[in-house]
Structure formats: C-alpha cells, structure tokens
C-alpha cells in the first residue's frame, strides 16, 4: 500500500493583497503534476462514500483513480458521464458538505481536494478540446426548457443525449442564469461559463436569448409547439428585510449589486456603461455565499466591507473556501446583529441601526435561533447597504401560468418525478426549492430529463 500523505498538495492562489485589486480568479489551479500527486493521495475506498454524498453521484473514486495514473482523458470522461459542467461544479460546489466532507482522509489529515481536481480536469479538457464522443439518435419530439441556469443546462444535455430536439428560452441577454449574473468572476471566470455553454450548442441545443416566457412568448405557445416543458426559472427575485430606509440611495439587493457587477460589468465602468455606486463603507446583511460574493466585490471596488450576521460565523451557510477567502481579504465579520432600520440623510444612506442578538434554542433547521436582546440597539455609520438574505421564485413567469400550482414557499409544486400540476410540464432547481446549490439544481435537471424521457416514451 502506498504511503499515506496527510496534507493536500498546496493550491497556489493570488495573495490577499493582489486579489482585492482585481476580479481575477483566486485559486490559480493545479498543474498536471500537482493534480496527479493530489489524486495519488486518494485511498480508493471500496464503498466510495464520496460518490454517495454527491447530489449527482459523480464517480469520484474512478475519476481520481484514472487521474492518479495520468489518464487525463479517461478521468475527464468519468466525470462528464454524470456532470455536464465539471469546470463550473468543481469551482462552486460546497464540497466540504458533500464528497470532501465524508472523505476518509479527513479522519487522518486533509480530505482529497476533489473540487479542485474536478475543475482541473474540466479546464484541461477545454484547453485540449477534449469532448465526449456522442452518437445522438435523433428523435422528432421537442422539449422546451425555460431558463439557462444550472438545472436547465443539465436537463438540456441529458435530453439531447436521449435524442430530443431541445430549445432553451433565456430571459436575459446572456445564458447561464446564476452562473452568469450571480457568481463573481473571482470565483467563476466567465470564459469557463462561456466554454461550458458552447458545449451545449455543440451538441445541438438551441439557446434563445432575450426570450421572456410570459412576455414575448407565451406559455401556451410553448406548450403547443413542444412535447414537454422543463421549468428551470430559478429563484431570481430578491428578498428585502422590510425595514425602514430601504428606499434610500445606497441600498441594494445583493441581486442588483451582483447583476450590475457580473452581468453588466459595472466594475469596468466607464469602459462599460452600467454604473454602480459603492461607498466607503459597505454593510452586507447575511452570511451565505451571496453575501460573501457581495462583500468581496465591494472590497475590490475599494470599499471597507462588513458582513452583518444574526448568528455566528459557525452558522454561515457559505462555502468554507469563500468565508476563508473573505476573511483573508479583510472582510469584517460582525456576529450576532440584526438590522432594525437604515438611516438616511438627504435621501442617501448614512448608517444602519442594529440590534444585538443571542443564540437560543435550535429552530426547525436545527440551527440555534437568534433572539433579540431588547434595548441593545446601536448605530453603525456606513454609506452602502447590500441585502443578501435570500431570493424567491420570480412571479413574472408564474403569474402567466395560474394552472401551475405552487408550494408553501412560493416555488413550483412538483412530485417525486418532478412533475408539476400541468401534464407534460416538469420543474426543478431553485424554481421549486426556492434556493439551494448549483449541484442540487444540476441533479434535478438530470432527474427531470429522465422523467421527461419516460413520459415521452409512453406518450
């Protein structure tokens, strides 16, 4: 048996000082040599706990085995079989809660750096133009997919592989959904997103931009022209806390802040036309991935960034790596505070009133419930507030299809097979769950593709 190496092969990164001046990606990526060395640390557990903890059951052990032998193409194809966008998933999956969280090596040292190996293989394949060799047996049936985010992408890929004619309708002027408008370049370079999307077009998926179902094309039209529909519209509508002062200039939803930066490239203003006002001191409400993205973007735009969170760091829902990077870069993290109102002067933000919180008994989610300490309100002076407290399903599409039933949290109601209340119409990803991870959305897109295939085979 090979010698056990407790420590990961170090991932080279931009230093924190370099990072905050640029939107370039933070990890520099493994070289082939480094990737193979890291893969060789894998114990090749016979029960593959990593694959079992992957929402889309990527055959982690097998791809690492091939990689450790230097068989890069085979390794890539092993991932690609289950994951249509490895270069993206490798970068944005919360691996510490999934494959890397259960990795046996964690008991004696660092878990295998599965995410970075996946990203390495995705990038390597892109660079060497390695693609799956597909023989698609064309079928006549047509499927429309609404939304080109992660779940739409994975659903489209599988449906194409089954042979259906697939058209994706995307409301924005660029494809990718949250991968395009939500996740910043320093976590997910757009050239990676573009390359993964070009794979879709390469296998014959028709992506139609600027198509807002319900506005310039009706759901009825789609229903008539297609044999099945998959709704992957995501959870694109911002939530606001609902406190006084949200009308002030300098208050943004995280969606607006990030859309301006990511989709519209406001960080390159005035070379790009979309502006963004970022003051000297930015308070970000929330502590998930989106909050980290907003705070780190604010830093890069020259502001002092403060996360304001009602629980403690340990309860942050962000990826481990993002929290770590944020703190390293100098994002301040204020624990146990909740906003009570935003204060303004001449219609601009000048501060935020916060109340101190303490952790109480666990709530339904199993996390300690934050409770207000009465009378502990205090004011923090700042000039920009970004609210990153979550998103919900956008009603723009849903209101045009009243026959699509919704669930308690406003998402589209689906059964085990991801069938909606309308025959031939399936839904998945954040449109049903109201906000989860890229990888869960990928998984549901694939599951829906299987259900749609079963349905079309029967009909």
């Amino acid at each position: 048996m090979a010698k056990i190496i407790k420590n990961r092969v170090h991932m080279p990164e931009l230093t924190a000082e370099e990072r905050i001046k640029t939107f370039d990606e933070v990890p520099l990526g493994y070289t082939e040599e480094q990737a193979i060395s890291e893969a060789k640390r894998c114990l090749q557990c016979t029960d593959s706990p990593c694959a079992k903890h992957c929402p889309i059951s990527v055959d982690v052990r097998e791809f690492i085995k091939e990689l450790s032998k230097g068989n890069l193409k085979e390794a890539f194809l092993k991932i690609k079989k289950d994951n249509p966008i490895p270069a993206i998933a490798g970068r944005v999956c919360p691996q510490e809660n999934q494959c890397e969280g259960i990795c046996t090596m964690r008991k004696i040292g660092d878990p295998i750096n599965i995410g970075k190996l996946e990203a390495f293989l995705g990038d390597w394949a892109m660079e060497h133009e390695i693609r799956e060799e597909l023989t698609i047996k064309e079928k006549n049936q047509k499927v429309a997919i609404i939304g080109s985010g992660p779940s739409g992408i994975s659903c489209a890929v599988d449906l194409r592989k089954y042979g259906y004619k697939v058209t994706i309708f995307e409301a924005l002027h660029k494809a990718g959904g949250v991968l395009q408008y939500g996740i910043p370049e320093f976590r997910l370079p757009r050239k990676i997103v573009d390359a993964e999307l070009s794979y879709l077009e390469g296998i014959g998926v028709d992506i139609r931009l600027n198509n807002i179902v319900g506005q310039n094309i009706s759901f009825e039209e789609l229903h008539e022209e297609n044999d099945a529909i998959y709704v992957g519209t995501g959870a694109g509508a911002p939530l606001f806390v609902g406190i006084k002062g949200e009308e002030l200039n300098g208050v943004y939803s995280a969606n607006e802040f990030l859309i301006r930066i990511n989709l519209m490239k406001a960080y390159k203003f005035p070379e790009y036309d979309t502006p963004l006002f970022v003051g000297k001191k930015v308070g970000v409400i929330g502590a998930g991935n989106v909050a980290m993205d907003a705070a780190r973007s604010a830093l890069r735009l020259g502001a002092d960034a403060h996360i304001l969170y009602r629980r403690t760091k340990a309860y942050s829902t962000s990826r481990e790596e993002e929290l770590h990077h944020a703190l390293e870069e100098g994002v301040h993290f204020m624990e146990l505070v909740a906003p009570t109102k935003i204060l303004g002067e001449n219609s601009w933000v000048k501060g935020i009133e916060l109340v101190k919180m303490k952790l109480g008994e666990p709530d339904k989610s199993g996390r300690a419930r934050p409770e207000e300490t009465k009378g502990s309100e205090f004011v923090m002076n700042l000039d920009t507030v970004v609210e990153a407290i979550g998103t919900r399903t956008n009603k723009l599409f849903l209101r045009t299809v009243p026959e699509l039933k919704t669930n308690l949290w406003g998402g589209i109601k689906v059964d085990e097979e991801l069938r909606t209340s309308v025959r031939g119409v399936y839904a998945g990803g954040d449109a049903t769950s109201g906000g989860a991870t890229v990888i869960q959305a990928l998984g549901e897109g694939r599951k829906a593709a299987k259900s749609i295939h079963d349905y079309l085979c029967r009909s």
Partner: protein
Amino acid sequence: MKHEITSKEDLNSEDYLIQVRAPVIAKKLQPGQFVVLLIHPKGERVPMSVQKAENGKVTMFIKKLGKTSRELYTYKVGDYLENVIGPMGNPVEIKKYGNIAVCSDLVCGHAENYALCKALKQVDENHVISIQTFPTKDVVYWEEELRRVSDEYYITTKDGSYGRKGHYRDMLKQLLKKGNVDMVFAGGQTEEYLKLAELTKSYNVPTKVTLRPIMVDATGMCGSCRVFIDGKMRLACIDGPMFDAHRVNFTELINRLTLFKKQETIAMEHYNKTR
C-alpha cells in the same frame, strides 16, 4: 439577435425618433408596455418607451440626455442594435372609461400616448382628450399624429408661444372644473406627478401615471426599480410601469432617480474623450 435601424429622424433639437426591426416585439407589445435596449456589448440595459409597434417595427422617441441616448443618436439607418428586448411590463387595461384625459410633458409620455390614445379611442363611449405640453413653440412635434387619434386635442407651452400657456395640469384643471373628466392617464416628468396627483385627488378622479425608476434587468430580478405604493414595495418593471397616482410615494421615487447623477457625468466625460 441584432436589430436593424430602419428609420431615424430629429423631432426637435433634443428629441429624436428611432425605429428598429423587431417583429416579435412589434407583434406582442401592447400600449403601456416598454422595451429594453442594450445597444452594444458594453452597453447598459435601458428601459425605453415605445411610440408605435406595427408592421414588424418598433418606434421610439428618445431625448439626448445621457451617454447611451447620445451614443445611440450617432447610429445610422442600416446600423444594428445588439439587443432590443421586450415587451416588458404590463399593458394598460383598454376598456370603457368615459372621458379620458391623456397627458404628457416629456418625450417618453409623448411617445406612449400615441398608442394609448389610439387604443382607448377604439372603445365605444370613450372620449379621448389629449393634452401635450412642450416648453415652447419651436420644439413642438407629432401634433397632427396625436390629434388624429384623439377626440379632443390640446397643446400647452410653458411660455405661451403656442397653444395655451402653462402645463398640462392647468388645462386639465379647467376640464376637471367642468366635471368633464372620468379618468386621467399621464406620462412624462416624475416631478410633476406629485402636483397632478393632488389636483385629481381633489376632484376624486382616478389617475394612472407611468413611473420610470432606474432599472437593470427589468424582469423582476434586481429590485432597483422598487417603488412604494401605499407603503408597500412594488417593482415598476413587473408590477407596473403604470400605477395609481394617488397611492405612489413620489418623493422617494424622485430621490431614487438621483442615484447615479455623478456616474452619469463621468460616463459623459469618458464618452466625449473616447469618441
């Protein structure tokens, strides 16, 4: 998909007309709805009022105001716009209202009111009264066209050099006094809506105004265009753009319109330097 410019002309020294080929939008767009322009890959998404959507083409009236509108003015017939997106927002409910005053004092309102008047006039028992306001005689445009789709037509100029002197509100007040107005639609300057709302509220006449807060995606995703209606947050892009003037918090909206004043100057300076 790129969109060809099929027509472009000056309306006056500040405002111009531009028409693009956009068959799907032209087919679907109804009065009250708007489009979003993104003129080139580095451009911003700008919501734009539509004057006419017919025969596969969409016509807009635009004021040379900021960087994008000035840059677009340099485009020629035969050039292409990167993206024309829409229709956005909700259509106006076209039904029997009775005597309807349709008012405007700015390029966007002048544009929107053409299709609105035309549609409202087609309903039996509707009597459409257009009131168009311009600063002075020399800058008046589209008078005949709007007159054709109205039952009554008034023009006012702020300096009295043409038509009646004053703002559309002054004319409207006379009509309200006579009890001749059942419904008011207004488009144009947000700053004027506040007084309009006070006026029509005192006569208890329902009034709808088109709001144009700053937008980005205009599909309900960013929340930039949030407006407060009876204290409740609404998004102008997907809940509007038309709202009950008696319930809108105009002061907050006017403040929010100043958000990027500084950036607008920077953008213009950069444009003038690099063009």
